């Protein structure tokens, strides 16, 4: 575009953003925890928690910046910055990572209980008596401790909807 008006620049912005001159978005755009880039663009601020009341006063630039990380971006650096604020794939990665941990813990618990049963938990196990019973009780406790599925606090796994998966 050869004209002097940057269509991605909101009314009231100051400075020459097209040349990287350190322009900033007007206060009305930056309100609600948003940040302006040195060379344009509007970004969400990941360092503030905000409140439920934030949404009421946002315009669509701010809504886009909040959800996608950035708005009105023109450069790869800006898009990289936005990706550091909002990236659905990080949720996928977190889900698969937690699922991996869960299955590993489950495997450890199951293996320990199976070995303990062979040693002291079956009719033909070599170890019998009160100590053997106590050993089995302890291993049952250990198995429960290492099996996240027996607890309610650790539901792990990737999102059921895989449309955000890119790799």
């Amino acid at each position, binding site marked *: 575009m050869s004209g002097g008006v940057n269509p991605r620049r909101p009314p009231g912005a100051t400075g020459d953003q097209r040349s990287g001159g350190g322009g900033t978005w007007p206060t009305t755009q930056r309100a609600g925890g948003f940040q302006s880039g040195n060379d344009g663009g509007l970004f969400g601020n990941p360092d503030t928690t905000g409140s439920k009341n934030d949404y009421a006063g946002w315009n669509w630039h701010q809504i886009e910046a*909040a959800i996608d990380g950035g708005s009105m971006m023109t450069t790869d650096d800006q898009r990289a910055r936005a990706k550091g604020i909002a990236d659905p794939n990080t949720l996928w990665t977190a889900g698969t990572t937690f699922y991996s941990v869960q299955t590993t813990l489950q495997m450890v618990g199951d293996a320990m209980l199976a070995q303990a049963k062979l040693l002291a938990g079956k009719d033909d196990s070599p170890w019998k008596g009160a100590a053997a019973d106590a050993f089995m009780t302890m291993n049952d406790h250990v198995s429960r*401790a*290492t099996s996240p599925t027996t607890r309610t606090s650790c539901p792990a796994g990737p999102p059921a909807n895989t449309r955000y998966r890119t790799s």
Partner: protein
Amino acid sequence: MDVQPGAFYHARTSSGATINGLNGNDGLKTKFSHVISDLVDALGDIQKAITEMSTKYKNTEDLNNASVTDLQKDFQTVQGDFTTLMNDATGSSGNSSGG
């Protein structure tokens, strides 16, 4: 592993806080790290206890004559490890693994 859920209230307080913690040092990520650290301690102490038992009890007959008290002594450290693990997993008390 860090989650970038976006920059709006519900993203930060649901996904972000649940996984990373509001300040990036809490949440499921930190909880799992503590649990795994606790588990490493526990498995190491189990291995140590079993090794000591194999020296202490020469045969199955010796083992069958062991009392519950003997076993509790042998696995005292292990029981403490798993108590810590459960506490860290459920957040029912302060973490002691320092992870």
